[in-house]
């Protein structure tokens, strides 16, 4: 899809093949896609269609077998490991299906962790972490560890961690998959608010039609290829 807006991510004919023993699994079979600033993009498709693999490539968590993935104008395949770590740290935020919070850190320390990696001073990162947690309605839970939080609360802490670093792009892999309906709805409303108020670009994979309803762009993958790419109005407020 062509768009006059700046392309944050350009994927050109990307392929990804996993080898397990003698078995080769072609997860992506030549995907081309642009993600633009301001997108609130849902990646949909059946299991095994390549949604998570594509998110991992865009998030510099993995390298493509073939093709090109450019994030903020930088070709990931030519970047060193440390440069890709720096890109993830400064420009990208992640929300995983399994939350992936550091289990031994409290909610506020989890948010602070990324800010510390960015080099922020102790008092600055503590105040920003508390501010973001408060904005997400988690102020009361700041000193709790992940195992003392519900699934929905953990995922909101994961979102807080992702946006506290002020990334240009947040990637969320099935963020609502482990949440009940109400928590999923709450999370999507939160992500939409962050998108609308802070101009954060969101890309998330999902199976859930209620989640898709929040998206302004829906990319459907089938068998490792883009089968459709549609701009739409939000279905729900």
């Amino acid at each position, binding site marked *: 899809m062509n768009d006059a807006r700046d392309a944050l991510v350009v994927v050109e004919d990307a392929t990804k093949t996993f080898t397990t023993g003698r078995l080769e699994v072609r997860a992506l079979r030549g995907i081309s896609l642009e993600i633009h600033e301001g997108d609130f993009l849902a990646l949909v498709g059946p299991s095994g269609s390549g949604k998570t693999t594509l998110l991992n490539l865009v998030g510099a968590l993995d390298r493509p077998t073939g093709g090109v993935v450019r994030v903020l104008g930088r070709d990931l395949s030519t970047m060193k*490991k440390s440069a890709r*770590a720096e890109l*993830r740290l400064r420009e990208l935020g*992640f929300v995983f299906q399994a939350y992936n919070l550091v*289990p*031994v850190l409290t909610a506020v320390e989890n948010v602070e*962790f990324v800010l510390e*990696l960015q080099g922020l001073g102790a008092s600055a990162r503590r105040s920003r972490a508390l501010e973001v947690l408060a904005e997400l309605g988690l102020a009361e839970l700041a000193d709790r560890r992940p195992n003392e939080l519900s699934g929905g609360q953990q995922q909101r802490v994961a979102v807080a961690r992702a946006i506290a670093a002020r990334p240009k792009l947040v990637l969320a892999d099935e963020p609502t998959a482990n949440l009940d309906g109400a928590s999923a709805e709450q999370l999507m409303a939160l992500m939409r608010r962050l998108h609308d108020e802070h101009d954060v670009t969101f890309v998330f994979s999902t199976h859930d039609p209620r989640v898709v309803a929040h998206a302004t762009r829906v990319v459907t993958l089938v068998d490792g290829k883009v089968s459709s790419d549609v701009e739409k109005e939000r279905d729900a407020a």
Partner: protein
Amino acid sequence: MPSTLRIAFRNLGRNGRRTALALVAIAIAQTAVLAIDGLMNGWVEASLEAMTGPMMGHAQLHHPDWREERGPDLVIEDADATLARIRALPDVESAYARIYAPALAAREVDGRAVVVVGVDIAAERGPGGLLAGLPEGAIPDARGALVGSRLAREAGLSVGDELALLGQGADGSFANDLVRVSGVLQTPIDLVNRMGVIVHLETARDVFVMPGQAHEINVRGAGAPDEAPALVAALRGVEGADALEILTWRELAPQLSQFIDIAGVYGLVVMMIVFIAAAAGVANTMLMATFERRRELGMLLSLGTSPGRLVRIVLAEAVILGLFGVALGTLLGAGLVLYQGAVGVDPTTWGNQEESMDVAMYGLNWAATIHPYLRPADVLPGFVGVSVVSVVAALWPALITARLEPMEAMRG
């Protein structure tokens, strides 16, 4: 506190079983190294003590031909004056004059070859002397004798028995005397136990016609046995000693000295084997502990943690664990060695043997009981070695993980 240390400390607390397992492995490794070290120290010291104690001292003075020919006339003249000058040297702890005279000991109709040993009984009851620890009541009078334990057993001698001694005087005359057994003696010297009849130095001088003379002056330095060459150099300057043969204990018994050195190397090899076995256990525990955290480490990479930072997080945990484990092992090992040092260890009872036995080798009786001990410096090699193994074993999988793409690590 930086998050690296915070994560390290909390991870150790959170994974109690894993932490306990690693701590125990590291502590056991250090304990084993220290226990072997202590045992070796005790053994080497006991061996050196046996050699450089009553039998040889640190150095000996003889007539130049005495060791070769053992002739009764090959004596140290004016031995008492030379002995007094030797005792006045600052580096000398003790010095004794001795006479060794082969003789026939007859009791009723039985005769037996013996060696009459004339010693300064009052002086040799002191530390390092042939009669160290001899109770006052057992001191023989001028016509009394102490007999070696094995000689007493084999000849059926007991206290109060009379022995007729027949030998050759230093002047070539026929020497004979009658002595009464006043005690049975167990010494570290096998020869004395088997053949020794110990009498006062003056008695021996009378019987064997050796006025003011001796066959040997046995000297123990104030320093360690290995400082014997310096002691010999000092002895060479003593008036009256210049014409004598003066040798260190290593020169007197080169085979025995070599045996101690070889045993020391053997001990080092045993310790290396124990260390390698213990280190393998530690390495295995730490490797498994870090490998099973691969997914967690991958997640940290995904957040933008640099590979270097990731390695530092694992390193912090390993260093904390290693230091605590080694400290614990040092306490346990030092405690064990202290206990063993106090009660003594008798390796001859480790098999099916129920009773302790002495070990005779190269003419020496080694007391079978070893008293292990540690020097402060002995703790260091284990401390460094075990800590390094713990850290390297944790570092290796961490480095492998840090080289992976975050998703590869998270897939496990």
